[in-house]
């Protein structure tokens, strides 16, 4: 009887996870429409991202090296990934090369948003730096993307490691802007571990969704 009950529960769980996956993929499809230059993006959203780009360039005017910008938020589903993608595309319109790195190794989203697939990503590069060339996708003329790669058991340790620092230093030589899409701060410590290596932290707050405390 016990085995039967457990089996039933396992079936229920698999059904619910399938439904969750379906809902998730539907949500990603909807979010894909919000990427600028994909047929969407009305005048006001474009102008808002242009304003954001201008304000970032003003606030990082003193930074001499290439600018590493970390996009994060307090909780999940506050618009980190879509902001990171659109910011990369907007910066690339005026400035030189932009590299977008998906540092969310727990729940990666950039690959699904931009419809890119690769088994080699940031986690693989951190373990084996010689894979760097293979991991870089050329999304368009001036935007390159590194996906998160295989999901490791210790993402925060990997992101806080000296290898991550040396990787960012190597990438700084070839890109003007590096944008890091990181996991939410209140849930995991990955973004906090990465913050000393960045020039600017951009916390996203979603109006009428994000809680003040």
């Amino acid at each position, binding site marked *: 009887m016990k085995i039967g009950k457990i089996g039933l529960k396992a079936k229920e769980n698999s059904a619910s996870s399938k439904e969750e996956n379906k809902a998730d993929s539907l949500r990603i499809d909807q979010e894909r429409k*919000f990427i600028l230059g994909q047929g*969407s993006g*009305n*005048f*006001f*959203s474009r102008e*808002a*991202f242009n*304003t*954001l780009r201008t*304000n*970032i360039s003003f*606030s990082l005017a003193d930074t001499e090296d290439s600018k590493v910008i970390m996009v994060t938020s307090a909780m999940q589903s506050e*618009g980190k990934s*879509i*902001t990171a993608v659109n910011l990369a595309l907007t910066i690339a319109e005026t400035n030189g090369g932009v590299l977008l790195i998906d540092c969310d190794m727990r729940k990666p989203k950039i690959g699904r948003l931009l419809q890119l697939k690769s088994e080699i990503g940031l986690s693989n590069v951190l373990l084996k730096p010689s894979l760097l060339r293979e991991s870089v996708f050329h999304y368009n003329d001036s935007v390159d993307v590194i996906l998160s790669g295989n999901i490791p058991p210790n993402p925060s340790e990997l992101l806080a490691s000296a290898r991550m620092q040396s990787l960012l230093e190597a990438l700084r030589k070839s890109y003007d802007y590096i944008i890091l899409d990181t996991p939410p701060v209140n849930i995991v410590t990955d973004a906090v571990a990465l913050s000393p290596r960045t020039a600017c932290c*951009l*916390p996203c*707050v979603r*109006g*009428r*969704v*994000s*809680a*003040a*405390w």
Partner: protein
Amino acid sequence: MILTPQVLLDVRIKDESDLGALFELPVLGQIPDLRQNPNKHTYGKYGKSSKYYSYQTEELRNKKDKKEKPQKGGTQQ
């Protein structure tokens, strides 16, 4: 009676002023709701987009105004 506690207990961040009150950080940008239909003219205080963001010349505008205004001394039947 029911609405008052709901408003008081609502801890969500609504706009830029709420953020300013909570954190001493500059707000670098405010992205509008991306789900908004771009064809709808719902742009808040700026009213309809065509009014403020049209690139018509002054001459064209004057022509339109003249057409709309009734002529002085016109005969009424």
